């Protein structure tokens, strides 16, 4: 009984090998390297959102609010640079939900809170009063 298994295995692996070979031969190889429009759209959108955030931080009124709260805007800039595309998108999305987009204080408080939370989670080290565990 047991002696049948190796043969089955051999046949199975030969079959799988042939299968893989054939499927790789008949795959539309050219299509594989085509860069889809969606991939470029995503890249473009991520760049736009990052630029939007950075532009926001360039605003003098917001910068002075942050400074008044003891945060250097440059540190926030650095933090935004370090965010992944997905994180930037999430941040921009949440920013859009801050009532009255023109309200500087609301924006500053929002950014402050977001950065404080990420600081506590250990992703950033912007605020000196948050104690970080040694890692």
């Amino acid at each position: 009984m047991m002696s049948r298994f190796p043969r089955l295995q051999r046949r199975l692996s030969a079959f799988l090998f042939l299968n893989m070979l054939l499927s790789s031969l008949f795959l539309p190889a050219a299509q594989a390297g085509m860069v889809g429009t969606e991939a470029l759209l995503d890249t473009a959108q991520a760049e736009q959102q990052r630029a939007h955030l950075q532009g926001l931080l360039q605003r003098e009124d917001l910068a002075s609010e942050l400074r008044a709260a003891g945060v250097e805007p440059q540190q926030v800039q650095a933090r935004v640079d370090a965010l992944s595309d997905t994180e930037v998108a999430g941040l921009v999305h949440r920013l859009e939900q801050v009532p009255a987009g023109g309200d500087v204080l609301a924006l500053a408080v929002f950014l402050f809170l977001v950065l404080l939370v990420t600081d506590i989670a250990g992703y950033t080290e912007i605020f000196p009063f948050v104690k970080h565990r040694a890692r």
Partner: protein
Amino acid sequence: MAESRLAILRLCLLLLAGLLGGCALPPLTPAPDLPPRQTLGEVPFFAQQRYQCGPAALAGVLAWSGVAVTPAELTPRLYTPALRGTLQAELLAAARRYGRVAYRLPTHTEALLQNLAEGTPVLVLQNLGLGWLPRWHYAVVVGYDLEADVITLHSGLEANHRTALDTFRRTWARADHWAMVALPPDLLPASATRADWLAGAAALERVGRAGAARQAYVQALRRWPDEPLARLGLGNSAFALDDLAGAEAAFRRLLQQRPGMAAAHNNLALVLQARGRLAEARAEAERAVDLGGPHAAAYADTLALILRQQAGPTRPPQP
């Protein structure tokens, strides 16, 4: 005794008012040229079965757009039994599989009304319950009357259900202002933003609806002739449809407009390779590799593919 009971009652009422009236609605500022009322008469209504408001609502919107489909056909694709309902992303995905340009609308009432004014029915998510006790519901907005402050929906078991505009705005706000449209790819509404339309078209390209994607890109280029990603999409969809000459023309035109767009060089290289012009293909692929960028790995693959093919005729596989 009676006084203290009254006080408790008052407190309860106050709490209830606090829970119900939590969100104040911002004043509505519709565009000055928005017609004061609109009724879309030609949106089919499908009465929903239990928990099936998602398929029923989508079937209505799709049928309006020219896709003959019933809620029963959509249900296996859309209904998630564990949730007793349908996820928003699945509605968008399903509409795309039927070759419609589908995208989420901006989250303000004015955009919703604008779409209706243009003749497009809008699929909305509502929370008919409360924030902490949600009752999710999909419906199709088919009309409004600003003078009577009324909005008309195909909802549940009722066609043309009229509800107060402010009530609708509250239930919609509790569902994060989620609204979508599903449009025929040759119908680009005036209010559609470039980003939304392109995202919808690119999603069609991704799910393999190349014919619909091409139509959507043609419409996009009619309105935004210099949009590079629409031109790229036109080339990509032409290539997917085996229209190699059309694809080559699109990528060459894009490169005239945007010299140094690496992805366009890469995709042109693959079109030329498919047309058997390997030397030209190689030059384009090398250009893409030189330019690099976030998709550099794909460009390297393209060049490798062309170099392999140039190295000699492919031998038949050895058994």
